[in-house]
């Protein structure tokens, strides 16, 4: 009895530092976001007025906010699906097939992930340049370029963002899938081979089910990281333009803070927080399967 009490005391002492820090640096700021969303306040002013849910009511009628949310959802859906598909395929090829220079490809795919977003923005600025840009020069070999394609123009800017984000993210997820794929025992593939299963069947029947837990985890990563990355890409590549066409929820939130609406931007923060939480939970629930073991 006495010893278990001491043991608990010891455990409490051990956990305390982490808990204290977690509360101070994670829980309190988050609660503060929720609290501030009910106030009206300039970013630099020391006075604040309680306005209840007024900020949220205004959000619903703010067309710019709705558009930025739409853009964010578009990015989450498209970037996730495309990156996910490419990363899985590349990972399967690199682990299952004997290709010359496997390590080389692995590194090449991973490099974009090491680059800072600002560097990537610079690279893509050169790629998307209307005149003499890499993409338009290549397309110019096949068609007349008197009216260059405006990759960062109003109609294509979201597509351009998607391409850059996919390019940046593939390597990271590919390496994650490769790690779990390489732990799938070779014997399963050999025996399925004897049963006459082709490569595609093996991929869908063996590889995917066995790395499913990994896929589930990465889906949550996708949602959270796309929301965050979208902000960085938009800030560095387009600053939300032209005329707000590439604004995403987080960059809009940031802009509203600069406009002197701290409380309002915190309300946007709350919406994004709840949205990403709900979406992650939903995806987690929808992908729930009986875990397979090998």
């Amino acid at each position, binding site marked *: 009895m006495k010893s278990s009490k001491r043991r608990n005391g010891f455990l409490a002492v051990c956990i305390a530092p982490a808990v204290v820090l977690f509360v101070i640096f994670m829980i309190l700021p988050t609660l503060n976001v929720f609290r501030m969303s009910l106030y009206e306040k300039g970013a630099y002013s020391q006075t604040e007025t309680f306005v209840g849910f007024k900020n949220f009511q205004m959000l619903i009628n703010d067309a710019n906010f709705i558009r930025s949310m739409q853009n964010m959802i578009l990015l989450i859906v498209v970037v996730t699906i495309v990156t996910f598909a490419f990363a899985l395929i590349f990972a399967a090829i690199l682990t299952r097939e004997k290709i010359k220079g496997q390590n080389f490809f692995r590194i090449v795919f991973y490099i974009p992930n090491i680059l800072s977003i600002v560097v990537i923005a610079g690279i893509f600025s050169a790629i998307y340049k209307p005149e003499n840009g890499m993409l338009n020069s290549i397309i110019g070999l096949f068609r007349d370029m008197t009216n260059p394609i405006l990759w960062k123009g109003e*109609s294509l800017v979201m597509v351009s963002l998607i391409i850059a984000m996919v390019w940046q993210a593939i390597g990271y997820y590919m390496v994650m899938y490769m790690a779990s794929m390489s732990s799938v025992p070779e014997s399963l593939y050999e025996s399925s081979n004897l049963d006459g299963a082709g490569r595609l069947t093996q991929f869908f029947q063996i590889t995917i089910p066995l790395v499913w837990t990994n896929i589930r985890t990465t889906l949550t990563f996708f949602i959270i990281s796309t929301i965050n990355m979208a902000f960085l890409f938009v800030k560095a*590549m387009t600053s939300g333009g*032209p*005329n707000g066409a590439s604004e995403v929820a987080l960059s809009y939130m940031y802009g509203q803070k600069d406009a002197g609406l701290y409380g309002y931007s915190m309300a946007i923060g709350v919406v994004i927080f709840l949205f990403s939480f709900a979406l992650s939970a939903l995806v987690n629930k929808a992908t729930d399967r009986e875990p397979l073991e090998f």
Partner: protein
Amino acid sequence: MKKKILCTIMSVSMVASLLAGCGGKDTGTQGSSSDTPTSEAGASADAGADDAGASDDAGADDGATADDPYAAYAGTTISVAAIETAYGSQMWQEVADAFTAETGIAVDLTTDKNLEGVIGPSMQGGEYPDVIHLATGREAALTEQFIKDNMIADITDVLSMTVPGETVAVSDKIAGGFTDTSLTNPYGDGKTYLAPMFYSPCGLFYNAGLLEEKGWEVPTTWDEMWELGDKAKEEDIYLFTYPTTGYFDAFLYALMYSAGGPEFFDKATHYEEGIWETPEAQTCFDIIAKLATYTNPITPAQANDQDFTQNQQLVLDNKAIFMPNGTWIVGEMAEAPREEGFQWGMTALPAVQTGGDSYSYTWFEQAWIPAGAENQDAAKLFVAFLYSDTACEIFAKSGAIQPVLGIADKLEGDNVMFYSIYDNGAKAAMGNFAAFDAIPGVEVRTVFLDPVNSLVSGDMTEEEWIANVISASDQMRANLK
């Protein structure tokens, strides 16, 4: 038993080291954004206080022996934060040194291209620099926020102060008109809150060599402008481009002046009811909408903070003739490749009809003292010093021209031509949109200027733009300061 004691000691030390480690790490990551500046500012403030305390006695002695007007400030350190623009940051260091040499007040200088990011976090924590030099109209809109929240110190008394090291008053040095605009007196109560700094005539910049080569005249009315546009189009040169839509502020102000004169400008910038349905406003909208059809179509795709220099490059490459800009463009594009025979030219906005007035907007930056600053009196001395001959010369060397009388003699190179624009018939346009309490989703830039991108790309019609302006203007009027 011994073992147990040993165990306890070891676990305690482990926990302690864990604490130390975590604590260090967490404050470290936080510090990079917010803590460091605060603690630094705190440290320097403390140091300043200590110094002041230590030298109080010395100051008293000095007062007894010498007649030093700055004795009261002995040992004071003021912190000055200045935005680094195309003029560079070296000049600020030189001016700060000159100020210290003159008054004995030490200056802790911060300059950065992204000044808001550097001083912003510590200001949110309540630590303010004593003097901030940061123009309005930037994306982070820090100055505007301080204006909206009434957090800027009244510096009307600086105007009657004597410039340190000289015998004249500040108001006798600043050129006429600069301290009566809505940019310096944002509340319209006759009190000055922001000191006018580095002025630059804004207008349309072009390649004078190209016009000369083709035998084209610089248009003096918009009708001539469209004619030139048609002629240039035949040679595959577009009439117009712009770096980003932000550059349309000076353009729009000058256009409003030339369409309706100062009275219309005043009403429009105060969002008077029905003002956007008047013929004068319609003229402004029509001209910009028509100009959009003459604009190089790749402009909007590059009109962002990352690529705007490529739009400026269009003028250097003879792919567009005119762009709205300021005199800093020469320095900004100094290293850029250009067509043979390229020569900078600058003109005021063409007149709306023959014989009408042409206007050039006078863009200037602002220096101000936060109401929460600690050393306000010393800060005011610094602001006064910014208009001294010494400071003006240092600034002028880097191309930054202070709005003081007689500055014309200190101009060199292209600047002589640029700054003579008002001597050649153009009238000066000054002022800006009146401050209003922040409204979600409604900002001057997003309502008035950004849609130009959509006009050029054809994603928005002139009517839609005007309708948006009218509805936003109603909200701005309701929230006027």
